[in-house]
């Protein structure tokens, strides 16, 4: 188990490093005037010169890279000339928003997806199952932003006109300020994030559970007289959930992507919104910072999921 | 007469690693065998004794762990793929599974024409004509040139495999259980086909099977394999009438006999125990745990495959106490 962990961690570090190099090449080596690019569109000649000097862009590439890496390891993610603030503080300020959104969304999508899947599996071909199928069909065909727009229109706008002000259409209230308002502002975004993926997960859970249902050990459990509920929750769920967990690992990236989209639909001041803005304003240091931070999170999350997978399925540990 | 030796294998060893750094399984342990021009050598043994592995080592589908294989006087043990190309024209293989050995997505004419295409021998219409000639030769309707393997029966598919193997007129064909997957009535047809082709084309066969009666029918010489080693080899008639190795005797006694009266009279020799795993073979003579004649010497010293009867060097046996007659082992 330890060997497995070590190998996975090393691999994760390797991936991170490769991404790091790729980012460096993309932003500092490839463009013909990296200084101007980093300094931003509004930069004066003075600023450009300052950037040139600060980043040591006239030095050999390897030296530049070395400085790049050392700066990163010290937590220096660069400086945004457009926002006149260090990238790190910009990111830290917006991180809670994105985290709230992402984690809440993930929890919701798992809960929704798995419970729908379980229900559908327990009553195959019933009305519930068919409704679930339609749900899946819709989910697979709808882009996240469209779901967000529709939710905005129906649950926010229409309800508001009707006088019901339950779901705010955007904005963010920090948890520390007011937990209820925090949740209220996040409900629509969470739903948006969750619905599309819940569809896939419900289908995955359903298929997986149906497979496990037909296995011999389930029949044994049933014939022993164990209640259906116990059969489902104690025996079947554990093995049926392994493909779901694996899929989750693959989907951490999708979660981040979904968060970016949702933030832009609902105007949440998170990293996603910052990222898209920075692309429009060509604020490269912010983009670099976000890409690196996000890569780190994705790799770390994958590692965690691998670990969970090893816990769930002992066969993996022996490798 | 070393000049008409076609294939000679010396001390071939093949190991497989079960896991990347795990223990190695020795599937073939020091096998030496020869095949002369135009003769049929039968190779028998139970499933798992290493016959198929040996076949693939001889045709260089597997890399040898050690030992040598010489074809037409030339050492082919370490040749590269490129250097092996001309050898592959002369040494071909027929496989066991009529359903797996043909690509289901390709038309039969294309499959049979593969050797022509690969070795650049014939093209276009010329190739088609030759393929159709081959189809006729093996008893298939040449008009079925464009059909898919799924549209043929098992016996017909083996014929397709045979056609593919003889396309370039090889000198040796290694037949790996060519009829084991077929119905008995079809088996006879395919075997007769192989016999006819041998006469017409002057082929040599290495005929591998677990079915003793089939092997007896087709072979000039027979070798018996057990747990990766050859335990006895002799001209066919002699092996079947006067087996020397206890294992051979036991195998023969278990083979079904057509005549019910004779069958009743026979006393089968029952071996105790199961075939040991090739990953952990017994010490000394590998057969000793199951051998009714085993003695102390057998547990420590592995017997060499040599002639045990003075003056008769065609009959080799790997046993310290070879049988003088089959009846020695029959329970009283």
């Amino acid at each position: 188990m330890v060997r497995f962990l070590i190998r996975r961690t090393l691999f994760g570090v390797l991936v991170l490093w490769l991404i790091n190099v790729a980012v460096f090449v993309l932003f500092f080596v490839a463009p013909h005037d990296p200084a101007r690019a980093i300094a931003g569109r509004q930069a004066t000649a003075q600023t450009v010169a300052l950037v040139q000097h600060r980043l040591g862009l006239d030095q050999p590439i390897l030296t530049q890279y070395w400085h790049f890496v050392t700066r990163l390891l010290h937590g220096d993610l660069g400086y945004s000339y457009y926002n006149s603030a260090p990238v790190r503080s910009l990111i830290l300020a917006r991180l809670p928003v994105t985290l709230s959104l992402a984690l809440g969304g993930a929890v919701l999508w798992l809960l929704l997806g798995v419970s729908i899947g379980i229900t559908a599996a327990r009553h195959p071909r019933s009305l519930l199952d068919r409704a679930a199928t339609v749900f899946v069909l819709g989910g697979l065909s709808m882009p996240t932003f469209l779901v967000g727009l529709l939710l905005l229109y129906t649950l926010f706008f229409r309800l508001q006109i009707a006088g019901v002000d339950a779901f705010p259409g955007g904005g963010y209230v920090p948890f520390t300020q007011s937990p209820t308002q925090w949740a209220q502002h996040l409900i629509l975004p969470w739903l948006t994030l969750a619905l599309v993926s819940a569809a896939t997960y419900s289908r995955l859970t359903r298929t997986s559970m149906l497979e496990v249902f037909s296995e011999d050990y389930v029949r044994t459990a049933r014939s022993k007289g164990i209640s259906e509920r116990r059969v489902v929750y104690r025996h079947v769920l554990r093995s049926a959930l392994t493909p779901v967990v694996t899929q989750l690992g693959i989907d951490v990236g999708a979660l981040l992507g979904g968060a970016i989209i949702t933030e832009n639909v609902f105007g949440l001041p998170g990293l996603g919104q910052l990222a898209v803005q920075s692309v429009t304003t060509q604020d490269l240091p912010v983009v670099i910072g976000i890409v690196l931070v996000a890569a780190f999170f994705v790799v770390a999350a994958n590692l965690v999921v691998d670990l969970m997978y090893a816990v769930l399925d002992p066969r993996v540990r022996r490798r | 007469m070393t000049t008409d030796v076609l294939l000679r294998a010396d001390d071939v060893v093949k190991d497989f690693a079960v896991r990347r750094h795990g223990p190695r399984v020795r599937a073939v342990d020091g096998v030496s065998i020869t095949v002369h021009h135009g003769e049929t050598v039968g190779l028998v043994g139970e499933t798992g004794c290493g016959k198929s592995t040996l076949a693939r080592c001889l045709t260089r589908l597997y890399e040898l762990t050690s030992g040598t294989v010489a074809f037409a006087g030339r050492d082919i043990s370490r040749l590269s793929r490129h250097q092996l190309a001309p050898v592959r024209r002369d040494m071909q293989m027929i496989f066991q599974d009529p359903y797996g050995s043909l690509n289901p997505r390709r038309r039969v004419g294309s499959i049979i024409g593969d050797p022509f295409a690969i070795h650049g021998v014939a093209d276009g219409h010329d190739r088609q004509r030759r393929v159709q000639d081959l189809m006729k030769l093996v008893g298939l309707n040449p008009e079925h040139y464009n059909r898919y393997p799924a549209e043929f029966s098992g016996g017909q598919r083996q014929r397709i495999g045979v056609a593919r193997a003889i396309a370039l007129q090889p000198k040796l064909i290694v037949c790996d259980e060519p009829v084991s997957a077929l119905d008995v009535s079809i088996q006879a047809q395919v075997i007769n086909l192989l016999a006819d082709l041998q006469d017409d084309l002057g082929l040599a066969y290495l005929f591998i099977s677990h079915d003793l009666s089939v092997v007896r029918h087709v072979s000039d010489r027979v070798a018996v394999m057990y747990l990766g080693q050859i335990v006895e080899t002799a001209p066919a008639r002699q092996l079947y009438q006067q087996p020397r190795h206890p294992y051979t005797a036991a195998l023969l006694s278990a083979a079904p006999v057509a005549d019910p009266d004779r069958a009743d009279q026979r006393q089968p020799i029952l071996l105790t125990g199961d075939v040991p795993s090739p990953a952990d073979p017994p010490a000394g003579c590998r057969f000793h745990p199951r051998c009714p004649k085993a003695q102390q010497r057998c547990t420590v010293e592995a017997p060499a495959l040599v002639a045990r009867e003075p003056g008769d060097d065609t009959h080799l046996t790997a046993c310290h106490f070879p049988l003088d007659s089959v009846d020695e082992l029959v329970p009283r």
Partner: protein
Amino acid sequence: MSTVPLQAVSPVAGDDPVAADIQGRSPLRLALARLRRDRVALASAATILLLVIVAVAAPLIAHLVGHDPTTQYRDTGLTPAGLPIGPNRHFWFGTDNLGRDVLIRVIYGTRVSLLVGVVSTLLAVALGVIIGVTAGYFQGATDTILARFMDVVLSFPFLLFAIALVSVAGPSITVSVFVIAFFSFAAVGRIVRGQTLSIREREYVEAARSLGASDLRIMAVDVLPNLIAPVIVYTTLLIPTAIVFEATLSFLGMGVVPPTPTWGNMLSDSLQYYQVAWWFILFPGLALLITTLAFNLLGDGVRDALDPATERLFAEK
């Protein structure tokens, strides 16, 4: 060899069901026959065909209607207060905030979506097949590196990569195609690799090698034909994903730029105006939904036709 007396070798009768037929029915042809009987798949195919026709005929339609996608019809298309007009006789789908004809813009948007969707998918599939087959066939170190690479690509957030690239190269249709293709190839590659791994162990591959066939030949002649079925299925299923990707990119302003209309950037505009103009969301949204749905259902039907054993995703029975 002792044998029974030689018999003349006559064609083996066998159980020969298809008597006079000389051409074999290929597995693909059988699949097509099955597909033809699937009504849902046929309906989807028809829808897609309609979309293609509309996309190709876009300039013609614009000419017939009398409006073009980028002109701002301020007199006829906006209220005196400057707000967009809803669907009416002149503008079947209404107008947008700049007085442009939504119908024509949606139609022109079809072009972008279909073009980007199909081209990036084809690119992704080509790349995925090449890399997947190479990894699966050669195994060893090559396989480990390529397989891990594909796993990493698969797990990385596509949007993040798009953001990085667009910030350096600027938004454009080419960048969109490239980004989408790069992220889709890994899914195809993994499937192809898996299939290749199992095909490689089949006896007919061994037979080919014993004949002396080169690796390249085996890959082309023995491995690839057995991949056609899953590749086709994946292609049809990948196209809607690509279309959604493109729409998302445009929505965020990182795809095709205005004034070229795409469903994505139209929906992006709708964010600000939906409270006064519901038709902003409805028509591009509906177009997007219908297109993706059609491709998904078709892909499902294709998968069923090629391999009836798989469980249908959207089975009605």
